[in-house]
């Protein structure tokens, strides 16, 4: 029994050794050449300097600006979309958040909304999530943010509905059609990695200022998961099942409708869940173009550095995310259970249940329509003030007492790791860095990725932002290393203990959904306006994904292997390092590559707190007319960096996985 684990682990490590030497050799050669040629061909570009490409993009956008009012495409197409979107959001707002139809209050008051949400959670989920929903929704009022929360909910629901309307059909198409799938995948990558700031300002030119632009911005970011996951679900349906249905004489359409879609239903619900989460991520950023809701509160609080108020609103966003996440997950599980067990209860009983719930909800909604106490959340119940005061006090304490240590940490990481690495990257001629990247791709993955890497390097040079790209690359890689350290430490801890998992998971959820603008100010106070601040912010955002994936990987290690190692007398340390981590290696590589993408998503936020480089270029392009072209180029450069790094790590992971399996 004991021998089962060890030789497998030993074999698995064998092929990795020579590759590790090769990588080390490449790095050594790089440093050696750098010593002689540093400072040559590094493409310096000053803050306000533009390349001809940037100027041309500026001119191009100018042309669009000027033709917008004469072009029938705008007059008859875009304008109607805008009207439709504005109306949809305003309609939902009229129902739940704004005074409407001549009433001083919305149609459905707080009690009705809480009842509706709870009923939905109960009917599609279970009693537990229904309880969570009731408490969560009530807490919006308790935090003193009822109206703002409902605005956010209205915008999110409109954007999610639209995303699903577009995303699910496209996802089904991508699921059944390989060519369309290949075509759409890079486009989705692009949509998810392109920083929102880049298209936020142009969007307002198309869809004007207001809910429509905010909805479109949200949809651009939230539709990719809907498409991807739907396609994945359709694809996952086993060929045998399809053959069976085909042999029974089903047409392609019938087998899609009767076999593939029902079987993919659970996966599609996962897609819905991811779409909602992505939409909520946009709440604060969309506030910059006057999107209503909690994001506004966060952005306003940031103006006066009012951490307490920002946190209070951020907390409401987190609560909303957690409630929506748990309800959709529970709905997904319900579908699966029903699918496995067949219909266990009679339809009659279910119908009675639905009737009862709806009746109660209807009564509560009516009360909230008629009586002020049930329509307007009682302001005496507002505990938001205490939350604000508590957070303010905690922030103040941390800044007063921890700044010495955090400053020391900042200097250690900056001088010891970041500065030398950045000097190496930015000081090397572009062809040297390019060659190193291509060599890495060659060693770690395959010929196709080598080609992709070469193209990406060429694009980075062509975009005219080589220097800034290298600064960003340095910070990104350092942040990813920190993410992985956290990911492994916490992930192993969580993976080995269910109790730890239960405590830590909500914290991770909060880290992912809390708008970065909220924790920027405290981190700024601790680390100053530096690249490290940006790195820490990125780690807060990216570490949860890495931790979760690692924990899942650790939990996925076969219990027999763990038992075997324990029986053979392994210590806990040995068990972790010799059995669990090696066996979870593919999960770890996935965690690293996802962590990297999440870090890149924070590059622009980093630009707001002293990271400079590409993030700053994007923010500058958002704020200054003549830098618009450069900002767009910087956005594309971030996407290019993302694609390059993701391709290398993903194929490396796949190769490692294949080798591990081959060894078995």
């Amino acid at each position: 029994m004991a021998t089962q684990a060890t030789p497998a682990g030993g074999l698995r490590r064998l092929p990795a050794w020579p590759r590790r030497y090769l990588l080390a050799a490449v790095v050594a050669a790089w440093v050696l050449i750098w010593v002689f040629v540093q400072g040559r061909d590094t493409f310096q570009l000053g803050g306000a300097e533009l390349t001809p490409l940037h100027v041309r993009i500026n001119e191009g956008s100018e042309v669009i600006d000027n033709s917008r009012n004469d072009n029938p495409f705008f007059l008859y197409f875009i304008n109607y979309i805008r009207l439709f979107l504005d109306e949809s959001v305003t309609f939902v707002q009229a129902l739940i958040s704004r005074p409407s139809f001549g009433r001083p209050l919305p149609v459905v008051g707080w009690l009705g909304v809480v009842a509706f949400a709870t009923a939905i959670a109960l009917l599609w989920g279970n009693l537990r999530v229904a309880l969570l929903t009731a408490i969560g929704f009530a807490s919006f009022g308790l935090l003193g943010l009822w109206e703002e929360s409902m605005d956010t909910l209205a915008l999110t629901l409109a954007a999610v509905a639209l995303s699903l309307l577009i995303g699910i059909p496209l996802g089904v198409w991508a699921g059944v059609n390989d060519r369309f799938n290949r075509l759409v995948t890079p486009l989705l990558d692009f949509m998810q990695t392109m920083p929102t700031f880049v298209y936020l300002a142009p969007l307002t030119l198309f869809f004007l200022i207001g809910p429509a632009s905010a909805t479109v911005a949200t949809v651009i970011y939230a539709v990719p998961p809907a498409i991807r996951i739907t396609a994945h679900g359709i694809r996952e349906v086993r060929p045998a099942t399809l053959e069976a249905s085909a042999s029974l004489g089903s047409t392609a359409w019938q087998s899609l409708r009767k076999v593939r879609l029902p079987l993919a239903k659970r996966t599609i619900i996962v897609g819905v869940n991811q779409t909602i989460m992505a939409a909520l991520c946009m709440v604060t950023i969309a506030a910059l173009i006057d999107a209503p809701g909690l994001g506004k509160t966060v952005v306003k609080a940031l103006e006066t550095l009012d951490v307490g108020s920002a946190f209070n609103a951020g907390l409401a966003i987190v609560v909303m995310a957690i409630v929506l996440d748990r309800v959709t997950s529970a709905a997904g599980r319900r579908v699966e259970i029903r699918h496995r067990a067949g219909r266990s209860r009679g339809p009659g009983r279910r119908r009675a249940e639905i009737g009862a719930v709806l009746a109660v909800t209807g009564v509560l909604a009516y009360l909230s329509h008629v009586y002020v106490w049930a329509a307007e959340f009682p302001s005496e119940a507002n505990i938001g003030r205490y939350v604000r005061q508590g957070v303010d006090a905690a922030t103040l304490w941390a800044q007063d007492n921890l700044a010495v240590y955090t400053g020391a940490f900042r200097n250690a990481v900056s001088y010891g790791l970041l500065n030398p690495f950045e000097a190496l990257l930015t000081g090397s001629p572009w062809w040297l860095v390019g060659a190193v990247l291509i060599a890495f791709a060659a060693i770690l993955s395959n010929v196709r990725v080598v080609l992709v890497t070469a193209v990406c390097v060429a694009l980075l040079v062509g975009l005219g932002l080589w220097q800034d790209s290298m600064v960003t690359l340095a910070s990104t890689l350092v942040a990813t290393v920190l993410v992985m350290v956290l990911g492994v430490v916490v992930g192993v801890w969580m993976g080995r203990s269910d109790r730890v998992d239960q405590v830590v998971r909500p914290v991770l959820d909060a880290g992912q959904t809390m708008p970065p603008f909220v924790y920027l100010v405290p981190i700024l106070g601790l680390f100053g306006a530096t690249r490290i601040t940006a790195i820490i912010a990125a780690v807060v955002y990216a570490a949860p994904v890495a931790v979760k994936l690692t924990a899942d990987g650790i939990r996925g290690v076969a219990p027999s292997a763990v038992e075997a190692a324990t029986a053979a007398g392994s210590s806990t340390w040995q068990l972790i390092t010799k059995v669990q981590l090696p066996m979870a290696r593919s999960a770890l590589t996935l965690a690293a590559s996802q962590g990297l993408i999440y870090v890149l998503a924070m590059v622009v936020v980093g630009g707001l707190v002293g990271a400079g480089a590409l993030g700053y270029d994007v923010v500058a392009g958002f704020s200054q007319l003549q830098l618009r072209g450069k900002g767009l180029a910087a956005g594309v450069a971030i996407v290019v960096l993302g694609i390059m790094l993701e391709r290398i790590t993903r194929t490396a992971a796949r190769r490692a996985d294949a080798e591990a399996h081959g060894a078995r």
Partner: protein
Amino acid sequence: MTVSRIGRPRAMALLVATGLLVSACGGAKVGESDGGAAPAASSADGKKECGTVNIAINPWVGYEATAAVIAHVAEKDLGCSVTKKDLKEEIAWQGFATGEVDAIVENWAHDDLKKKYIEDQKVAVSAGSTGNKGVIGWYVPPWMAEKYPDITDWKNLNKYADLFKTSESGGKGQLLDGDPSFVTNDAALVKNLKLDYKVVYAGSEAALITGFRQAEKQKTPMLGYFYEPQWFLSEVKLVKVKLPEYTEGCDADAEKVACDYPLYDLDKIVSKKFADSGSPAYDLVKNFTWTNEDQNLVAKYISEDKMTAEEAAEKWVGDNPDKVKAWLPTS
């Protein structure tokens, strides 16, 4: 002309809005009470109707203070309905072209935007000064000015460069700059004044203020770009560093600037359509002026006393009836 053409649906909305307003004036119907404003009083004088005014709110507190006071007076004294839109500067200017914004009530120079929207597209016009003087410059926290009195002259900055070294400044002293939308010549200044400093871009106002706040509290050195009027100056009295004096045209060539920033006359920009509408709100915006002290006070109500912008405006307006009276249309 450009405005009216994209404005097909817009015109409809306007029609509906005016319709509502007219009916509200004709005697309040049940359920159409419009926030309790009393438009009847102003229409009794035979003045023009005000309608809806869209004011852009740029993201800094001083701006919000100005906008809140104008909005308060427009609503209470003129019976307008004011829509505030939270927007960054460039997007707010775009709003002139698309008809979504009527007024920007505190504008810092932005010659490129003026050229594009006022001169080229002719969709906006200037509505004169706000009375606020914009000061831009280099500042140090008060404790430094006290400990090193001669630090407030640029000639001595090189002597202290070592103090300002950080992990970001590559061995030189650090000069921290803020949001990319701010007017800055700092990179050129450092070069042309032969200072041993590197400009580090913090990227946001929040980063600048947090930096100065920590610097004063922890007694750490900091040199940074800052400006007034600004609410933060009522919390920490930053000290301005003297740069070579500004003379007319010394900043003409952006590459060769070696002088201080000029005193900015902050102004108001309105859409052409709004200016031509004859709305009393336009007269209000045009007549509005006050001082840096006025704005800082309202900004302080908002940022430190945690009042809402509306409460702060109401308090200030209540305390300064004479100033407000001077802004009102006199027809």
